[in-house]
């Protein structure tokens, strides 16, 4: 047991060092600065995918994360541009707002299961896009543009986060912020999964009626999990809007919602860190295939179909099953 713990701590340390030191170092050495944008996007998308993974954990197929990411992006953008609130305060507000919307919508739709829930969440993504087009506060199809970079965050005169527009390299700053967000998000996920709440979720994933019959308050539980999931989506979306400095109704569309779901599948639904790996592989795969021009989508989809035919339990299942095999 202690050996396993030691190995885990070692893996975590290696991960943190490579994310916060090794990768910036390598980029600084190679001078390939555009790489930061890719990695920042991966980190943020994996935060949103983590939310989707959490709803999978209670046995619901969630294709509505794009909706909550869009809501989060708009809330943050409106607060920053119209109310003049600091981005760092708008970020949690965006998450909380997405969570509140999730509670309101979740109360009726979480009664649905399986394909029904998948369908309604997919429709939700489209509806939020339409709402963003129609509502006056979101500025319609023109979107909200030229959002200022995050300002400094200080408590009692101590500067915690410097003003991004004053930093010589905002790309690096965004990279660190996104990675910190990702680490915090996955730490929270790990904590949830390995807690009493996580066990209740597993009982719900296996059989809702049975869980209900032994006294699990599933109606409450599923709304809470859906709200946490949407919180992640909202925060990820808000951060994305801040990096792009603009939000449009088409910033997050059905395709993105499906991508979030695919990230979770590809990484493996049985592993907390599955969505992170899935996002990395899918995003990089898509970027690498860009060289192929118009055959990009064709090859991407063929590879996707092959993966599901060959590895129905996700990429992480390969590694873990091999370790288990070696032990036996």
């Amino acid at each position: 047991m202690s050996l396993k713990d030691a190995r885990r701590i070692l893996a975590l340390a290696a991960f943190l060092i490579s994310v916060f030191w090794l990768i910036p170092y390598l980029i600084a050495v190679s001078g390939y600065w555009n790489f930061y944008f890719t990695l920042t996007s991966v980190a943020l998308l994996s935060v949103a995918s983590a939310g989707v993974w959490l709803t999978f954990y209670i046995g619901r197929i969630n294709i509505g994360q794009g909706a909550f990411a869009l809501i989060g992006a708009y809330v943050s953008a409106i607060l920053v541009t119209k109310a003049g609130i600091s981005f760092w305060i708008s970020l949690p507000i965006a998450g909380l707002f997405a969570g509140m919307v999730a509670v309101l919508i979740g109360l009726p739709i979480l009664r649905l299961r399986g394909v029904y829930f998948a369908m309604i969440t997919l429709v939700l993504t489209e509806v939020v896009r339409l709402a963003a087009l129609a509502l006056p506060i979101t500025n319609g199809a023109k979107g909200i543009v030229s959002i200022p970079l995050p300002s400094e965050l200080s408590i009692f005169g101590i500067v915690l986060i410097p003003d991004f527009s004053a930093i010589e390299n905002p790309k690096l700053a965004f990279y660190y912020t996104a990675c910190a967000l990702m680490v915090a998000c996955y730490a929270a996920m790990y904590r949830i999964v390995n807690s009493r709440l996580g066990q209740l979720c597993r009982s719900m994933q296996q059989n809702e009626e049975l869980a209900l019959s032994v006294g699990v308050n599933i109606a409450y539980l599923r709304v809470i999990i859906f709200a946490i999931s949407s919180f992640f989506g909202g925060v990820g979306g808000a951060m994305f809007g801040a990096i792009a400095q603009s939000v449009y109704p088409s910033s997050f569309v059905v395709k993105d919602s499906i991508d979030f779901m695919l990230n979770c599948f590809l990484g493996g639904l049985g592993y907390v860190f599955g969505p992170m790996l899935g996002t990395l592989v899918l995003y990089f795969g898509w970027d690498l295939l860009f060289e192929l021009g118009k055959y990009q989508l064709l090859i991407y989809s063929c590879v996707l179909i092959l993966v599901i035919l060959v590895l129905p339990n996700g990429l992480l299942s390969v590694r873990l099953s091999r370790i288990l095999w070696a032990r036996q």
Partner: protein
Amino acid sequence: MEQVIANGLYLGAQYAMIALGLTLIFALMNVLNFAHGQMYVIGGFVTYTFYGQFEIPFIFALLASCATLAILGALIERFLFGPVIRRSSREESTMLLAAGIAFLLDAVILLVFGEKQRGVPKIVNGVFNWDFRIIMPYDRILICVIAILSIVAFISFMHFSKTGRALRALAQDRVAAELMGVNVKRYSMIGFALGAMLAGLVGGLLVTITGVNLGMGGPTSIKAFLMVMIGGAGVISGAIAGGFILGMLEAVGLAVLSQYGDITYLAIFIALMVFLAIRPQGLMGKPWG
């Protein structure tokens, strides 16, 4: 008012056909076919190619659409859905596969037909005008009539033919159907082909009115999901009811809400949420559990 009802019926007839194919595939295989909209688009492009470019009579172009999609559907079932359903115990993996197929079909459409909006010449000219109370072009009326006739033909096929009976048995209970001597593998393939064929037929019919382009697939799938949720998944009468209800709501919404901007679908969705809170399985769906 009469105009709104006529528009609603016209929209409803085509929507019902799209929903029929989706719900048939869902009932038989328990698969949510994300690629349904893309199949519809392919149907439209095939009819465009034959009728618009090669100038073959419309009816034959329509048949070519049906045949193409039926073959495509059969192949997809045979080589992709069939193996995955047999090997995995979770329904999620078929959804991933369906999403992958939707991407694949999008890529194929892009490569074969290009990304341009395509239209074909009208099949009949002239406009029906009843005292300025109902105004509707003749080709729309014709398409509407063909759609309704196809729905009737489909229902009678499902009710009175041997294949239809086998498909209904399969939808009710796979194991029981197999025990009664239904060749499950073969009829799954036929069912999928039939569902895809319906998508192709609607695509071929509508290309004469709205034209067709690459981006139509996703929104069409979403509308089909809406209809299926209204009527209840996996039930044929539900799909038809859902299609006509959505068509009617859209027509009324466009007429009544147009001064507030494009909020028809927003209103429909909110109404749907309230409805699903009361009746999660839709109008005619079976409760699960």
